[in-house]
């Protein structure tokens, strides 16, 4: 227990401690400040790598156990007990790969920050705070804690863009800040909605245990008492998932006939996809990228965008499955729209960095699409495998895009540092002028293009392949993006790297790539190739968790949602039959009947098909609990 608290807290807060320590260092000792910061990021990276290395058999340690689906290294300590807020963290196959990606990219992008010359101390402190925020988001399991970290990460980013950015930095920083804040507000509303709808007493003992609820005994006592109005609200994400899937706490109608979880899903989804970003909420991204200094672009594209995807898979779907099922087409449609729109927009850019930024919009569209393809439904006999493939592909795409987009931004930064412009039409001939640099850049761009053998391919293809079972139309449109992607990447390469000679200003400054820059580029390339050739090295970490989550949702679809849909359909048909009866002479009676039926079907129907929703759900949860209870009995 204490191990977990120590290591996870260290991972999250070591950067902040480093930032505190930096306060003691005089501001003119620039080199020392940089080295300390680099050392801190390296230390955090080393910690996560330590956790990632598989443990020996049977040894109980904080090392990440591959093949285990559940949360690992969990601890749950009261923080603000009066509001049921806990210091609750843990890692599983969904969050841990992103944690490693974050620490890895933090090291590389900080190393790329040597080009930042002004106010280095402030930059380093903010950078470290940013890292704490990012890691906290991925590790937090308490919704409130999650929200805090989400906001913590926002502020340093604002200053990093706004102070160290390009000419329009204030505009970009404000735009970034307001967009994200808007999302945060939506998220906060949803958090409170879910909090006040939640009730731990609805969960049975195994479910509480699975959710790592700290005060189980208290809950059980309250359950016995079964007092009215004494709901036990919670921010526990895992408990909220259990409630979303096994109880009807979030099914109450809220507004315009839509349930609470429908609205919660929508609010959370908007909050998260602003971060992803998706069209049409994406315009902060190109501006932020163009103005941000290179290392911040790397972090922004490499890590920050992933938080949106992470939120969707971690929070939206498991907590609000019913809404997720109903809105799946919207989610997928938005994903496909982003893919196409981003690719087209990228093609028209003349600013190199803007092009890469739009390519991020397009690539992150795959993530949203992959997460959304709820193909585990009746027509496929609730086959969870294809959806799981989509979610796995989306998660892989997040990792792969983290590597390739960070690499692309870095490669743009390398030449920007030299010639101080990014106009695609004023490059050319870099292959000849800077052969090593170009040789390193081209594989990275091909990774972005989705070339097999590099990291971009796996995610894109897995996502695309998984869509067909959900919607043929979306699948075909998604597949067509490969043409556009090839178009904009190849045209960019042609304009920048090929051709006889450099066409822009400051040609003399095109010095060969330095050793430091190479040292940043090589790891990215190595991982791009490794992930492309042997993607199992990522999948082995994430697949068990994702499979388990998707399987649970597939079972939920089969056991809860399908009877619900059948009941709705039966009710609709009954209503239609009744309204057909209206034409008959005995009007008053019919009207009366009609009224009753209408009322019934508006709320969860209880009469006609209604054993449907609630009791069935309960039965399911009881049934599911049975083996666990048995296991306990045996113990």
């Amino acid at each position, binding site marked *: 227990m204490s191990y977990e608290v120590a290591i996870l807290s260290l991972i999250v807060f070591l950067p902040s401690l480093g930032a505190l320590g930096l306060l003691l260092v005089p501001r003119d000792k620039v080199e020392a400040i940089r080295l300390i910061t680099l050392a801190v990021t390296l230390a955090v990276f080393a910690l996560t790598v330590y956790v990632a290395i598989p443990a020996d058999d049977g040894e109980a340690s904080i090392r990440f156990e591959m093949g285990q689906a559940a949360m690992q290294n969990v601890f749950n300590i009261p923080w603000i007990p009066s509001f049921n807020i806990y210091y609750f963290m843990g890692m599983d196959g969904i969050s841990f790969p992103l944690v490693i990606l974050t620490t890895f990219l933090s090291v590389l992008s900080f190393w790329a920050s040597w080009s930042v010359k002004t106010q280095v101390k402030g930059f380093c402190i903010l950078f470290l705070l940013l890292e704490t925020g990012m890691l906290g988001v991925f590790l937090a399991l308490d919704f409130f804690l999650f929200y805090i970290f989400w906001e913590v990460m926002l502020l340093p980013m604002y200053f990093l863009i706004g102070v160290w950015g390009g000419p329009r930095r204030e505009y970009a920083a404000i735009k970034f800040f307001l967009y994200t804040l808007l999302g945060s507000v939506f998220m906060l509303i949803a958090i409170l909605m879910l909090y006040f709808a939640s009730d731990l007493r609805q969960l049975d003992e195994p479910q509480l245990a699975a959710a790592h609820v700290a005060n189980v005994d208290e809950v059980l006592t309250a359950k016995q008492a079964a007092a009215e109005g004494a709901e036990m609200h919670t921010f526990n994400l895992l408990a909220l998932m259990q409630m979303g899937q096994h109880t009807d706490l979030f099914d109450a109608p809220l507004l315009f006939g839509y349930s609470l979880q429908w609205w919660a899903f929508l609010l959370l989804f908007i909050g998260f996809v602003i971060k992803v970003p998706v069209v049409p909420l994406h315009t902060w991204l190109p501006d932020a990228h163009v103005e941000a200094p290179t290392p911040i672009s790397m972090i922004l594209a490499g890590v920050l965008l992933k938080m949106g995807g992470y939120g969707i898979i971690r929070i939206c779907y498991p907590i609000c499955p019913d809404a997720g099922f109903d809105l799946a087409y919207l989610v997928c449609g938005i994903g496909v729209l982003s893919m196409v729109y981003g690719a087209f927009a990228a093609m028209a850019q003349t600013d190199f960095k803007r092009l890469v930024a739009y390519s991020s919009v397009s690539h992150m569209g795959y993530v949203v699409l992959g997460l959304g393809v709820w193909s585990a439904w009746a027509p496929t006999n609730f086959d969870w495998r294809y959806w799981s493939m989509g979610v796995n592909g989306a998660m892989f795409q997040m990792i792969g895009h983290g590597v390739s987009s960070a690499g692309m931004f870095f490669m743009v930064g390398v030449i920007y540092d030299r010639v101080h412009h990014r106009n695609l039409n004023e490059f050319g001939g870099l292959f000849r002028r800077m052969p090593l640099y170009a040789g390193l850049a081209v594989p990275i761009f091909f990774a972005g293009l989705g070339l097999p053998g590099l990291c971009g391919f796996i995610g894109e293809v897995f996502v695309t392949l998984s869509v067909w079972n959900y919607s043929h139309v979306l*699948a075909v449109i998604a597949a067509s993006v490969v043409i556009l992607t090839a178009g904009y990447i190849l045209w960019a390469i042609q304009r920048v790297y090929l051709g006889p000679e450099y066409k822009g200003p400051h040609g003399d400054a095109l010095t060969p790539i330095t050793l430091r820059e190479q040292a940043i580029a090589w790891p990215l390339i190595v991982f791009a190739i490794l992930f492309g050739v042997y993607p199992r090295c990522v999948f082995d970490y994430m697949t068990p968790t994702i499979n388990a989550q998707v399987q649970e949702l597939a079972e939920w679809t089969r056991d809860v949602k399908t009877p619900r849909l*059948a009941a709705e359909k039966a009710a609709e048909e009954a209503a239609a039959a009744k309204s057909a009866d209206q034409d008959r002479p005995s009007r008053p009676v019919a009207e009366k009947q009609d009224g009753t039926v209408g009322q019934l079907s508006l709320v969860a129907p209880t009469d006609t098909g209604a054993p449907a929703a609630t009791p069935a759900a309960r039965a399911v949860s009881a049934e599911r609990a049975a083996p666990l209870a048995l296991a306990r009995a045996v113990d």
Partner: protein
Amino acid sequence: MDANTIIPILLGAAWLLPLASFVTIVLAGPRMGKAGSAAAGVATSAILIGFVLSATSLMIWLVANPLPEPHHPGGHHEAEHHDAEHDIPAGEHATGNGSTPFHAVAFLADDSADPSDDAHADADGAEAGHQNDAGDHAAAEAYTAPTPIVGTWYSLGEFGSLRIDIGYYIDTLTVVMFTMVTLIASCIHFYAIGYMHDELHDYTDPLAPTADGQPLHRPGRFHRFFQYLSLFCFSMLGLVYAGNIAMVFVFWELVGICSYFLIGFYFERHSASTAANKAFIVNRVGDFGFIIGLMALWASLGTFAFGDQVVDGQTQPGIFSLVRPADHSHKLIVPAGMVTAAAADEINEAVLSAPPTEAAASAQPSAAAIDQWRSEGYGYWLLVIAGLGVFCGCVGKSAQFPLHVWLPDAMEGPTPVSALVHSATMVAAGVYLVGRFYPVFTPEVLLVITYVGAVTLFIAATIAITATDIKRVLAYSTVSQLGYMMLALGVGGWVAGMFHLVTHAFFKSLLFMCSGSVIHACHTNEMTEMGGLRKKMPWTAYTMLVGCLAIIGAAIPFVVGFSGYYSKDSIVAQSLLFWQANPSHPWPFYAAAGGAAITAFYMFRLWFMTFAGEPRNHHVYEHAHESPKVMYMPLVVLAVFATIVAWPVPLTNLSLNNMLEQARPTGMLPGDGEVWSGVLMDNLVIPNELLSHELDIHVPATLIASGTAMLGLLLAVAFYGVGALDPNEVRQRFKLIYWWLWNKWMFDELYDAVFVRPVHFVSRTIANIDRTLIDGLINNLALGVRRIADIDGLIDKYVVDGLVNRTASCIYSSGLAPRRVQNGRLQTYVVWIVAGTAAIFVLSEYLGWLSWGLGITTAFK
């Protein structure tokens, strides 16, 4: 070790060696001798060892799996038993088809009833495993296609039972392709050592002018060339080695990117980088279709593997067994997965209509329901989409109409690349994949393949007539020949198509290398600058003559001929058979036969213009010279192969044709009394390929093919050999046609107008929407908020604060006023005292009056 263990290892090594070479050159290239000259040695030895390993595998394979009895070309005489009874009225079997996919029509009844027909019985029986009644037929000792060697290296991802693997599927076709690719690649590596020697020192590139108009000087990059070549060989061999269609796609893309690098080798030239982009993007258009095909397969079958795999002790059927199960006599059947996928709506309806308690349980349709749906044609279109999708990829890769436009431009690459990548191997990968995936294609798809092939072969051949760039003529010729192969596969000639693939690889790489030798000598691609070169470069001229004779299929009919004779002959024969079986489809035959004439014409036009006659440009002629030995020796090797590769080895049954007969996937010949026809087009019949060896098909086909070729050859001689006809005059007379052909049927212009420009327009529009609409909205929103804030500020300032300030100032000023009084002057005070006293008196009087008055009013009340 038995063959099944050792062959995958040998081929795997042959596959990975070029990768090792690639990595070595990438990391150590510039340090490998002067300008990386040692890189050539590394790459060449890698591929040479690869060839040795492949050839060894071929031998081991043939020992382990003896070949069947020969049919062709050594077996013509066997057909003599047969007479005209095979001349079945074509309409007979084109009628009366029911709605079931595979119905038996007495098509081959006569044939199979003939007990003397041993040659066919062997193969027919082999392919049609349903012939259980062995005693009835000589098929008792039927040969079955050898079981492919299937295995898995590792999986890219596993989701439940879904898995995408890196593995292998090795059958005769794989081994033959490995040997062919490594052999040709070895020859080309040697040749390239000579051809690329310019790159060993600083290179002046006149085609890449710098801003001041001077030709560009740059250091040579000899090693880069061999680096890409090695990567290409690795990718190409991986494509052939692949055990599943997804892995094929992976290497499919990789050969594409190698092609991109190699076309763009002279990346300083704008034309080269544009051509490279065009090649990749056009291929991606094809791959778009490929992905759709993959999705249709994956979503309904849950596997990409070609062959059956054993996973965790259980046999998982591959695509081929799912589509053509052994217990269904290897006949095409719509797999259950596709049926249920197509019936998704019905299942959904059933589930939702069921009582809620049983809803979930009813999602699994019964076997009877699946059979019912299948008989109603459910899922068949998925099979068609899968086939068409995969074929789409092949259209891109093999430069078939309408995606053929990239290949001629790809000639921007160095000539060894054109020989290896863009004629012999990569572009043939599309044909290879059609052959590999043949069991999945429905008759409808095959018809599409036929017509795409026919149209391609015709269009490309006509363009080749007017082209004057020696490499472009060959490029169009390649497109046209690939069209032949597609056509052959489409009309049911699996062996014919693959046969032509192999023979074409030899003679076309030979032709390209010869043209490279000429370009090397003349420093120009234009045939209008050449002429009479055979005196200067006899090795090149006569090896190229061999190549030309091979491609036109020159032969003494029925006796002996160049390799192209055998393969083209079987294509023409099969298309004739197809016409017979489908009277409404004569065009494939016309295209094949007419194409033979055009091929002969443009090939000999090329040869005569280059090597015969008088030099057109004396400067060029003076400087021309024969290429070094390292270049022309590979030409000789390939010339020998181009001549004899189709010949049977004397005294054995070893021949290329026979190997391909063995390679034919199981179930790929309609069995006795069985006709393949489509469901969507039920009067379409895919004829049995073995029937094309019958005399009544074979003899006319041979005569027609040879006759048309001879016609084309004579025309070429008349125009360019002896000068009996004047090409200029003809050009004048048919100006419009000439213009049309010279402009390549306007495809580039058409695509530019229809696709490229609209895409750019859309992308600009979208970028504008972003900038003006969305950002405009956001900015205006922000501006609006600020305006509101400003107004709020003004209200605050003037209304709220104004009120407060006004109040304050009132109070203040009311405080100020009395201050005046306190001015410290005694006189004033005295005045005030007096005035005050007076006022008191007055007031008290007045008030008294007032109070009196008040008192009155009160009193009145």
